[in-house]
């Protein structure tokens, strides 16, 4: 059902000024989850006007901070805001550089359907997610648009992950894509603060292995006394706690000898990766035999290094209590507080 007015003005745009507020200031029950999406809450009058305009669906908007000229794009979730107000997710306020109650220009916009997206997690925690594809698919459902240089937030498993958009395709002047009803190829940049660990460590390990074979390979004495077999049997005996055989009611004996896999797949034991927690077995060597090829337990890190991470951790509740009454200890240490005490000794001493 086309509106006659709209039909005459096909390029007419929705354009209005609003005061922006964070989601948390919205009336009604708290809806924290809206912070982790890319949709805004507009007043009902906006819907009224939008419905009379000839705009493309889904409704997408360009949000602009007129003072700084920062622009981002978003979808709309509901039209329940008070008149003149718009509610935005926190990350959006941050990327527009807006505070609560400031003016924002909202225009309707048309964006291309995205085909490619390159994002960069803002912390290495993101690597701990076991299935990032599923997490992203699920949380990007709450978004309609993605704009380059925005740092959006998703919530997963009680943890908030900030993710920056680095690149979108197809490229356009708006540097933004619509992610509704589309398949997008996603590429990841290494998270901020991520250090590539593998090449360096493998080089050093190879170097140490080649120079000091005694650490990682069993020596002649270990072979003589069969130390590796001892340890292997120790760890195996600890692994195979539930040994034994099944019995058949029919009385026929079981044809399969149990656990051939165990004996075949006997691990190639070297002293390097022997478990220190395997139960100790008797080491009965003849008197006068010494053996030093025990698994090497690396030195604990030095105590100086221990202090550093503690300091870097944020100190919660790190303030100092203040007492109106000058305590006895402080009285002794500082001359000034002692003078205070002399002035009004009786009044202060009473607890």
């Amino acid at each position, binding site marked *: 059902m086309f509106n006659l007015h709209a039909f005459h003005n096909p390029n007419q745009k929705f354009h209005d000024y609003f005061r922006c507020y964070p989601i948390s200031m919205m009336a009604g029950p708290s809806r924290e989850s809206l912070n982790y999406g890319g949709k805004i809450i507009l007043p009902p009058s906006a819907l009224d006007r939008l419905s009379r305009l000839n705009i493309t669906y889904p409704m997408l908007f360009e949000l602009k901070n007129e003072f700084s000229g920062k622009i981002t794009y978003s979808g709309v979730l509901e039209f329940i805001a008070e008149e003149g107000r718009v509610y935005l997710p926190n990350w959006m306020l941050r990327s527009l550089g807006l505070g609560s109650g400031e003016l924002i220009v909202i225009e309707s916009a048309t964006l291309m359907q995205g085909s490619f997206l390159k994002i960069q997690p803002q912390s290495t925690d993101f690597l701990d997610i076991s299935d990032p594809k599923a997490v992203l698919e699920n949380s990007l459902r709450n978004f309609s648009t993605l704009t380059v240089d925005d740092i959006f937030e998703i919530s997963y498993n009680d943890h908030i992950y900030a993710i920056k958009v680095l690149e979108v395709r197809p490229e356009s002047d708006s540097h933004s894509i619509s992610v509704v009803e589309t398949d997008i190829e996603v590429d990841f940049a290494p998270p901020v603060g991520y250090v590539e660990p593998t090449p360096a460590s493998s080089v050093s390990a190879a170097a140490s292995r080649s120079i000091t074979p005694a650490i990682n390979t069993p020596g002649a004495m270990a072979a003589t006394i069969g130390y590796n077999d001892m340890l292997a049997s120790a760890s195996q005996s600890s692994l195979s706690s539930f040994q034994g055989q099944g019995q058949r009611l029919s009385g026929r004996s079981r044809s399969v000898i149990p656990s051939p896999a165990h004996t075949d797949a006997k691990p190639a034991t070297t002293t390097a990766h022997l478990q220190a927690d395997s139960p*100790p077995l*008797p080491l009965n060597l003849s008197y006068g035999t010494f053996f*030093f090829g025990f698994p090497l337990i690396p030195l604990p890190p030095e105590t100086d290094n221990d202090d550093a991470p503690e300091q870097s951790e944020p100190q919660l509740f790190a303030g100092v209590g203040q007492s109106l009454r000058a305590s006895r200890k402080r009285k002794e240490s500082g001359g000034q507080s002692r003078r205070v005490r002399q002035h009004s000794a009786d009044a202060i001493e009473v607890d």
Partner: protein
Amino acid sequence: MILRFRGRDGTFRIDLPADATISDVVQQLSLRIPSAQPSTFTFSDAPNRPGQLATEVLSKTVSDLGLKHGDLLFLAYDSAGTGDAATDTPDATNASARPAGPAAVSLSDLDKKLLAIDGRIKRPRDPKFCKHAANGMCEYCSPLEPWDPAYIEEHKIKHLSFHTYLRQLQHQQHSEVGSTVTKFLSQPFYGVKKPCPNKHAPWPNGICSKCQPSAITLQQQQFRMVDHVEFASPSIINRFLDSWRSSGLQRFGYMFGTLKPYTDVPLGIKAVVEVIYEPPQRDESDGLQLTLPWDDEDRINHIASECGLVPLGAIFTDLTDAGNGDGSVICRRHANSYFLSSLEVCFAAEMQRRHRLKIPFAENDEFSSRYVTCVISGNTKGEIEVSAYQASAAAESMLDVDLIEPSTDPGQMLVKLPQSGSDRYVPDIFYRKVNKYGVGEQHSAKPAFPVEYLIVTLSHGFPSEPQPVFSGPGAFPVENRGYIGETADTASVKKAVLNNALNVSSVSDFHLLCYIQSMNILDEEGFKLLVEFATTHEENVGLKLESNASWQTFVMILESS
């Protein structure tokens, strides 16, 4: 008629016809006292009086001897099995069976010296509390006993010295050392007492609370038998390490030296190592095996004692190059791994059992040992460092009754559980440890417990001004190092001894002395002179040696070879 016989096993009534002979009496008595030897029966009519040997009057009848119905005779005899001659009275038998009264061992010179020291810790006048004049004394400035608990707490003393411990025990017993010898030291015993004082069948057929060993609670030993190990000169260690440096294989040696008082610790003892003798062994990079039995042991001990040295302990290397190219080594032994592996603790305890300290204050005149075990390994900075340990007296005693065995985990000692058919008794063993909440809690030591409970750490060091007994250049090949091409032969002796005129530095080398002795050219007197010259460094002994006939022969042989 009835005759009564009173002996040490009780009174026996024997019913006899009037015309019975003494042989009948002996026959009946031997049935009643199966433990007695019938040939040693003696009768007397009063106790403590030498009696009549029964075998001499076998054919006589009872009435011939004038015995009447109801007479009481005193009987003495030897038990079957003892080969002693017949004794007259039961009392005399008992008296002779008692062990000899005086102590069999005497104190060593070192112990005598330390017992003579007052040993109390002198304190200056306390400016805070002392109210008296400068030459007065009060409770705040009187000397402290060396074992004073507050002093130990204040100075963080981990182990008392042995003589401090002796005095503490003495104090507890209120007895005086030197005047009366009391046996207040006792090596713990963890086995079943045999025979049991309750007179039941011996273990494993019976056990009771009297013969059963009580539960063992392991704790760190309060004292140490030796406080400090001093290497008379750094070159001793250097020379020992040379074998590892040139081969990369570990090395073992026996340390010989002297025990001396150590003044840095109250009543302390230090072991001054003068030489490391390397016995025959098969070395590997990750272990070593001594070639046992060591045939030369007695010969080397004899030469050492001629030099005035005693066996002090064992030393071995556990070194692995870290591969940094700067001579640093891997640190295997640290607080998170182990200091002395369970295998080495058992070795140390066994060596200590073979070198017991003879001291008259101990039951059986033996107590623990002053034998030390040194490890050369990498410290936390990757430097080569010596550390010295002893196994505790508890470790020796546990090894005595075969309670422990080493395990594949070096930090854990296994409790050897009894197998069926063996008559070992394993008591309950516990150890106490402070948990993460700072509360001491008791753990069962079965199946394994940390070896730290069985070792005692000693300090070690080098003197600031080395005055080693053997001051030679140390160029003579060390024995049993054939595998790295170091072999002693006549040529090397010739090179060492005849380099120039005979002087101390050329012969003052234990390894050289041992080799010369094995050549069997010098006679006893010549060798004694050589040893004296090498150890005392006195010129007139050297002159005597030069004029000794067998030495001249020896030199002649060397020159002509």
